[in-house]
């Protein structure tokens, strides 16, 4: 299992190092080629399923970017994905792999709902902000379990965070159907949060301001990572834990910053998803955000700022492909298939590019 972590946190700090150095041209080329290949593979898949690839892609783009309402939808989906991927990027910086973004999002959403009901009738500004603060704290505490276990008994954070996903998910399920259950709908969802606790929106298409919070956090986290003593220490811890300990870097503080800090971000993402987009708690609130976040963070090379475009593209893909079901009658599974293919191809392309001697030769003069 440590090998997996190693693979993901491997030596790419040179690229995204604190100096924020430029990304070599060759990497961009690789990336673009990988996306093209992924689209080609996706097109083949569409053709096999009996749809015109061009029409399919047109539908995807139209439904994710083509109109103000589509764009708002995409940005709303970007928000939790961005906060989740920033959470994973932060923990990867410290050398830990946080696979529990989904659980932390549930924890955040639960705390946000609790705060929203508890503060009903408070001034509007408190009603909006308090649930988000509660969400961040809840997510942080939830992830701190993994951090403390890791520190005290070297329990691998992979297992703890994955298992806590189930705890978070079924806790949300139980609360939604038993404690905050809505007697009106027959579904397994809670009653909605008070209208006063809902996030403010912009425009007329349901876009909420959570996206700005998410972008601000992503940028702040990355600047903090690159330009602070603690950011340096986190990087050192992931590069060499033994040497870092001998240099007086506190392992407990680092694991807390990396995992619980990530939990704060993910929890905030869950809270925003609740108060901005869903308004009700249910099992499935954190759709596939947990695992998509890991992919996004890896694709963004554990750089929180690069997570912004990556999360946006992935969110666009989610929104756009969802529309495929309705417009060209593709089965729901085909949608997930395309998403999986794109991510897989990009990762594969990166690995192959790393081993390619041709690219290595090309990049040598290019970087001079």
């Amino acid at each position, binding site marked *: 299992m440590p090998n997996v972590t190693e693979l993901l946190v491997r030596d790419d700090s040179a690229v995204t190092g604190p*100096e924020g150095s430029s990304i070599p041209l060759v990497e961009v080329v690789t990336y673009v080629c990988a996306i093209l290949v992924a689209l080609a593979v996706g097109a083949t898949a569409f053709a096999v399923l009996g749809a015109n690839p061009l029409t399919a892609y047109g539908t995807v783009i139209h439904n994710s970017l083509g109109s103000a309402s589509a764009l708002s939808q995409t940005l709303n989906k970007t928000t939790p994905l961005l906060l989740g991927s920033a959470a994973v990027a932060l923990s990867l910086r410290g050398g830990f792999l946080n696979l529990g973004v989904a659980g932390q999002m549930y924890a955040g959403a639960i705390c946000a709902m609790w705060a929203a009901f508890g503060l009903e009738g408070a001034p509007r500004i408190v009603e909006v902000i308090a649930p988000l603060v509660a969400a961040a704290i809840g997510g942080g505490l939830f992830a701190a379990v993994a951090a403390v276990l890791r520190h005290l008994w070297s329990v691998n954070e992979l297992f703890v965070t994955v298992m806590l996903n189930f705890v978070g998910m079924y806790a949300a399920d139980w609360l939604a159907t038993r404690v905050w259950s809505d007697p009106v709908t027959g579904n397994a969802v809670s009653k909605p949060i008070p209208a006063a606790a809902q996030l403010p929106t912009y425009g007329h298409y349901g876009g909420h301001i959570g996206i700005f919070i998410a972008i601000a956090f992503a940028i702040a986290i990355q600047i903090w990572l690159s330009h602070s*003593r603690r950011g*340096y220490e986190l990087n050192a811890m992931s590069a060499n834990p033994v*040497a870092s300990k*001998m240099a*007086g870097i*506190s392992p407990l503080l680092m694991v807390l910053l990396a995992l619980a800090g990530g939990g704060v971000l993910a929890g905030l993402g869950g809270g925003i998803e609740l108060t901005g987009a869903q308004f009700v708690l249910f099992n499935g609130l954190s759709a596939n955000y947990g695992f998509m976040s890991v992919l996004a963070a890896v694709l963004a090379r554990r750089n929180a700022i690069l997570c912004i475009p990556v999360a946006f593209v992935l969110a666009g893909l989610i929104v756009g492909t969802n529309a495929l079901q309705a417009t060209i009658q593709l089965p729901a599974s085909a949608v997930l298939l395309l998403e999986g293919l794109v991510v897989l191809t990009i990762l594969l392309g990166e690995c192959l590019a790393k081993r390619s001697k041709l690219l290595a030769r090309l990049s040598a003069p290019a970087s001079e």
Partner: protein
Amino acid sequence: MSSDPGPTSTPATRAGSESLAVAVDMQGVSKSFGAVRALDSACFTARHGEVHALLGENGAGKTTLMNVLSGLYLADSGEVTIRGEAVHMTSPQDAARHGVGMVHQHPELIGAFTGHENVALARTGGGLGRRFDHGCQELESLAEQYGLPVDLRKRVCDLAMGERQKVEILRELCRGATILILDEPTTHLTPGEFDGLFSAIRQLASSGLSAILISHKLHEVFAVADQITVLRKGRTVGTRSRSDVTQDALITMMLGTAAAEEARAVTGTAEKTQAAPQPSAAERAESGGPPLLTVSGVRVRSGPRRLEVDELTVRRGEIVGVAGVAGNGQRELVDVLIGTLGTRRGRLCLGDRDITKASVAQRIRAGIAVLPDDRLHEGSLPSAPLWQTYTLGLHQTLRSARWDPRDLRRQTQFAIGEFGIAARSPNAITADLSGGTLQRAIVARSLRILSASNGGLLVAVNPTQGLDVGGTRFVRDHLRELLRHNGAVLLISEDLDELFELSDQITVLFAQALVAEYVRGDFDRYRIGADMLGAERD
């Protein structure tokens, strides 16, 4: 440096070596790794019945040449002839079929298996169902015969390094090796164990085996070899018979004339200080600055990690050496001093300050720095740029200043110039630097850390291991420099020559405890060696 001949060897028995049958003949062997030419038409000839030493500096190509002979590397060009037959070997199995066996520098045995199982594992060819757990008795008596007495029923992980080596030699012999290569066999051994190994090698050679010994230690070569081939920068400089060559001649062959002068200065002082204590050092020890580090009654018990130190004092301006075979508590001692391992009982004081409960960061700020044993894995950030490695630990002393990566890079650039660190820029990736360059950077960093506290304690673990002459001198000069600036050094080393040369006082670590203490006048290689092995004293 002991140059007395090995116990069983006399020049007379080797006079007729010209008439012995040629075992190995390698001609014009070249091998490149990327841009590095490790072997450049190297030649080598060894005969049956002789001990042939392959001598050269680190990186001269000794091990590469032998890896070609043992089938690990495929040479780019050149011919290898074994017993008159031209061979083309592509794997160690091929080499074993031709009777070539190699014992590598670090034992390659399965720790959970007994010695006998390890040997038998190598012997059995195929056949899943074949038993290999019998014949232990025969093997042990065979071992006696070869002069390699070892308990083959013990698990390898419970054996001492010297015993493991015997198991490895035995394994190669059982595979039918008639040409036995030993790569730096004394790395993990104590002086007492040397003699046992060397007499075993001599006995094997006299029974007709061809033993090839890779080494860069002159006194070992003089103690055991019949013939000496010197390699320099991948080329064969020449082969000499031990009876008609001097140490000086060999040093010149190893290093070339210019570098040899320098090296002789280094080894010269080593011999001088052993013969009679350096007056300046003696004075220093007598005058004895104020104590910098005082350790008393420390007891550590943390899982398998143990350490007992009743009394240890390091004074300012003094180097205290810690001798001992690796794994006898060196790591624990370093960890206790730097604070990564807590003590159950006892007291640690740095100057007037009690640091028993201080954190690592507090200790670094108080003035403790470490030159770790494994530079890359304990002292640096391999995947990160050099400036981050240079800042590691040092950043604890810069707490009051604003965090400014640009300024840190500037400081690193300054250190690169001042300490002659062979790095392109502060952004060079640490892992791409050579071992010597990295050690310079870590020395520079440690001195920076200590300068913040007006001379502190430097804990140096094998500080010159693997360094060339220039690098060794750099490290030793800076250790002495630190003494002049009110600092002190705790030198934990496996290299007795180095300890003898530099230390004002030597203590010995054995079985996780400090067992003996010698002041400079009483340094005695064999008594210290006996202490390192835990031999009973009369």
